């Protein structure tokens, strides 16, 4: 009996790290299976799967940015507004007749500068919490976006500008049908996520971002310039929101005042579902991706089943609470000696 208990305990110890790392993927796989069983003809069809990826494309950029911020034990409430402002600047520049390569680069610069503004505000103005600075800029950036566009939608971009959000990679050379294409935005998500995975896990700066979240005093005592790293993190978060704006411009062919409204909350939800901790220092890029996918699949699946969007809200909220509760239980198990 004792021996058996020990065996279970040691197996438990061996499994825990994997469960901690990949448990969220398990949840994702279960969701996919459930959706497949409920909608066997449609859900895993080429058309629907690419649709899901197109729908999550810009959210995945915001979530990745917010994730980095959350790892430092901070928060960025302004990502939706940064995306909207970047999108509006893109639209205005495009309407002014700028060449496509200028139009494409403007939202990235605008997003980066907005993030830089957040980062400098938090560090130089010594805001008691990033919540306050980014709550302020949530209003400032959206207001500015409406000021420069006059509060009306601006539509009609060239194909080059729309490429990242709307482009298709033809797979007919693989013997597939014309409808079985690869969305460019999916490739973009993969590339950006891989780059940021390498950045966060294999670079000094990435390691320091985790260290700041784990113990900012330890980071400071190690000679790490904590403020500089925070400015970098918020700037990158803004930059990713700028990429989100470029994707959204491609998808909707329009800059509109409500773009990204409340999407900061979706981004935070995806991070939390994906296992990031509000206390900082915890979470993985893979987890964020899974979090974004879970939210995307839930919305898509419920749409397929014609469930009202009100029920979608209730379910997404429940998943957030459930996912974090599972995390709490898992931690209890993990620390049991």
């Amino acid at each position, binding site marked *: 009996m004792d021996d058996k208990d020990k065996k279970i305990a040691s197996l438990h110890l061996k499994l825990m790290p994997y469960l901690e790392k990949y448990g969220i993927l398990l949840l994702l796989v279960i969701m996919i299976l459930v959706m497949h069983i409920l909608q066997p003809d449609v859900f895993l069809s080429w058309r629907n799967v690419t649709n899901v990826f197109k729908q999550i494309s810009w959210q995945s950029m915001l979530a990745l940015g917010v994730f980095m911020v959350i790892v430092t034990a901070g928060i960025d409430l302004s990502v939706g507004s940064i995306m909207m402002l970047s999108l509006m600047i893109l639209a205005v520049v495009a309407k002014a007749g700028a060449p496509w390569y200028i139009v494409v680069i403007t939202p990235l610069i605008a997003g980066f500068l907005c993030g830089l503004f957040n980062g400098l505000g938090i560090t130089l103005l010594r805001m008691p919490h990033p919540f306050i600075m980014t709550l302020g800029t949530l209003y400032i950036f959206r207001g500015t976006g409406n000021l420069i566009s006059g509060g009306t939608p601006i539509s009609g971009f060239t194909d080059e500008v729309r490429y990242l959000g709307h482009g298709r990679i033809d797979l007919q050379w693989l013997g597939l049908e014309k409808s079985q294409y690869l969305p460019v935005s999916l490739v973009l998500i993969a590339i950006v996520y891989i780059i940021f995975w*390498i950045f966060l896990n*294999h*670079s*000094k700066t990435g*390691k*320091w971002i*985790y*260290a700041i*979240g*784990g*113990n900012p*005093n*330890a*980071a*400071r*005592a*190690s*000679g*790490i*310039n904590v403020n500089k790293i925070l400015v970098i993190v918020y700037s990158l978060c803004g930059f990713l929101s700028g990429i989100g704006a470029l994707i959204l411009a491609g998808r909707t062919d329009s800059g509109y005042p409500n773009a990204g409204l409340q999407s900061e909350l979706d981004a935070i939800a995806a991070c939390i579902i994906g296992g990031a901790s509000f206390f900082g*220092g*915890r979470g993985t890029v893979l987890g964020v991706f899974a979090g974004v996918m879970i939210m995307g699949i839930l919305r898509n699946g419920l749409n397929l089943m014609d469930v009202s969007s009100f029920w979608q809200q209730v379910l997404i909220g429940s998943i957030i609470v459930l996912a974090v509760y599972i995390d709490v239980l898992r931690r209890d198990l993990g620390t049991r000696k």
Partner: protein
Amino acid sequence: MSSTTNPLLEAKGITKYFGTITALENVNLKVHAGECLGVVGDNGAGKSTLMKVLSGLYKPSAGSLFFQGKEEILESPRDSQNLGLEMVYQDLALAGNLPIGENIFLGREPTKNLGFIKLLDFNKIKELTNAHLDKLKINVKSADQKVEELSGGQRQAVAIARSTAFNAKVVIMDEPTAALAIKEVGKVLDLINSLKKTGVGVIVISHRMDDIFTVCDRVMALFQGTNFAEASLSNTSRDEVIGWIMGKK
């Protein structure tokens, strides 16, 4: 022998204000190579503030620091580390979410070049960590263990390992045994004695007379932010030192 040579580290007339509070006033301190200086004082006497000034975390309001006879201005902990001045903080200053090895090398991680990008060299971190922990006879399950999974004594050992991983010349320890189980105290004190033998100057801040009288060569007392008394260990007694802490000579 050490008192005839120049001190390794010397602080002269250190004063530190926090707003209207005077934490330190005109405090002097020196430590020689291979020597252990004990710093005692009641809570609020200014011990920790002095150590934070020495490590570059606080800038002194007045006064100067000399390292190997040369005046140095410390802008950040990085500056003091570059000189070979290391600090083991009372709150340990470890990131619990990172493994032992990454804590030891935090801020100074070895990297490898992959084309034009520099990536962390995890193999080297592990290799160097294991070698260093072996040298200090510190036992842990694995260098990959997260610090939050360690006992208090193990954390202290990691913190000391961290401070000595880069050819430290002076190591400052803030209450190194305060959080330890009895059997772990001896190990840490042994560690301090072996550091001294390698020519490292050690400054130990402690409330525990046992620590002071086991490893230190000299003891100085701070009282209300000023130098109160100082003596070599052979010229004083526990009772006298305890008296200093309470402000009695």
